[in-house]
């Protein structure tokens, strides 16, 4: 492990990598946990006008304190509007929400996500919490970004249950089942890599490795045949400015990092 790796932890790396994908003057559905920290960091760094959307009604909050729940007061702190779940998911259904941030227990090569069960649905080995807003975000937002740790148990050939639609079984599948045309998975941010999707096959593709991680390590921690871009970049490590703002302003009580 290089010197650079020793100055930040994997959670900080995930947060900083995800924050860089959040653009200014756009709209993004934000879930509990790492997406909240990434959104807060982005808002304080390069995206002061990032419009955060929290599914139970918070629209356009300024994140000064980290929310511990998707409906709590900080999700509509100094917000544009305090609305409700129907209004905000309908807003996504009408096409107004560009990005959606998601997590999951399992993901496959087409970006399909499982947050429902491990094992058989009717006799589950592990009953997970369920879709929550995940399916809605993955159905209606134009582009979804998944943030999760990468290993072979999570990056699987076939998810036990498709909770949230990725590209389903390949090109054209989303449109065939009636999902809005032009929507779908965009990026996967992990502790090992930044992954995207091949424009034609819609299969997951390695775009960049995290600092100090080799392409082989990424492939070894993927349970399916991962495509590799012709030129794999190295994702720059968290900058000192990112880490300072993350530690001193975003999560000063160290609830997550």
């Amino acid at each position: 492990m290089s010197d650079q790796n020793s100055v930040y932890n994997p959670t900080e790396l995930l947060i900083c990598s995800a924050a860089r994908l959040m653009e200014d003057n756009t709209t993004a559905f934000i879930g509990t946990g790492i997406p909240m920290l990434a959104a807060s960091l982005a808002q304080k760094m390069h995206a002061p006008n990032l419009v955060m959307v929290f599914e139970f009604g918070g629209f356009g909050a300024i994140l000064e304190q980290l929310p511990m729940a998707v409906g709590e007061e900080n999700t509509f702190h100094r917000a544009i509007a305090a609305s409700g779940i129907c209004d905000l998911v309908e807003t996504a259904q009408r096409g107004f929400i560009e990005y959606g941030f998601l997590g999951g227990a399992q993901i496959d090569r087409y970006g399909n996500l499982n947050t429902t069960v491990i094992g058989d649905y009717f006799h589950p080995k592990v009953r997970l919490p369920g879709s929550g807003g995940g399916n809605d975000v993955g159905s209606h937002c134009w582009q979804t970004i998944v943030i999760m740790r990468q290993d072979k148990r999570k990056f699987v050939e076939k998810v036990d249950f498709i909770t949230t639609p990725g590209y389903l079984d390949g090109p054209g599948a989303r449109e065939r089942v009636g999902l809005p045309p032009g929507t779908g998975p965009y990026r996967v941010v992990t502790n090992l890599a930044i992954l995207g999707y091949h424009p034609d096959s819609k299969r997951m593709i390695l775009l960049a490795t995290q600092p100090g991680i080799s392409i082989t390590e990424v492939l070894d921690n993927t349970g399916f045949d991962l495509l590799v871009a012709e030129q794999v970049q190295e994702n720059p490590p968290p900058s000192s400015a990112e880490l300072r703002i993350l530690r001193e302003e975003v999560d000063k009580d160290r609830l997550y990092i």
Partner: protein
Amino acid sequence: MKVLQSGIGKLIQPPDINAFREWNRAKPKALLDKRMSEAEAIERFVRDGDYIGTELYGTVRCPMSLVNEIVRQGKKDLRVAGQGVFELDIILAAGLVKALDITYIGLEVYGVSNNLRREVESGRVETCVDWSNASIAWRFKAAAMGVPFIPVRSMLGTDTLKYSAAKVVECPFTGDPICLIPALILDVGLIHVHRADKYGNAQIDGISGFAAEMARASKRLIISTEKIVDNEEIRRRPDRTIIPYYLVDAVVEAPFGSHPGEMCYVYRRDEAQIKEWVEAAAQPETAKQYLQKYIYGVKNHQEYLEFIGQDRLTSLLH
């Protein structure tokens, strides 16, 4: 309309919209004093086997004093619309749930729910049908509209749809596949609000979650409120009234009614007690001990608040 796919999940509460109209017609439209205690409201309006729903959820504007009373009275074989964190975890831990229309039951930043795992993996929850968050809220919206279903573009192409009770049809206008989700009419809805008058006219501050939709989808509606205000205060700001009195069957005054959850602009959530639950919930024995300590061991919400203590409650105030 051509049905392209039918979810194989059980429709736990089939929507009888004509019976719902008859029910609503018979509800009193006069301004009646509906104030009562938690004990009386739950005794009178919740029955074993009822289909119930709560709003918003476990740590945010949650009807905890009502939920605690359901547990205290041991209302059993409940069928539940499941979007929850704390309150549904408590009802599950008490072993009162027979069927779930689930979208999310977990502990958010604290991870998966061990109570959900125990109850579903053991089969004690006999029926568990998955939906998305918005789908549950939209099912309430359909009931609130008085129609049997609503077309949406959630759930399409997924196992969430396959195992639900939704259907995919060919849209008669566009020809594209569209998901139809059935109206969900609750036997009992439980909603905690910032203020209400004695008739049940209720106002909420901050985000409204799915309160408006769920209130209108409930055959019987129990409102708990941080404070009961004079009818004149409601009339001064009628634009704030999200739940009008005629929807409401019982009004329960419950200061700190969302504790250990939060009530926006009034008090924050009680992180220490939430963590105590998270730790207790890991094992069935310790979960039962928590229920004994905070629910069975106290007679009512007043005693619960005395047990928590004024100093601690005051420390949560904004």
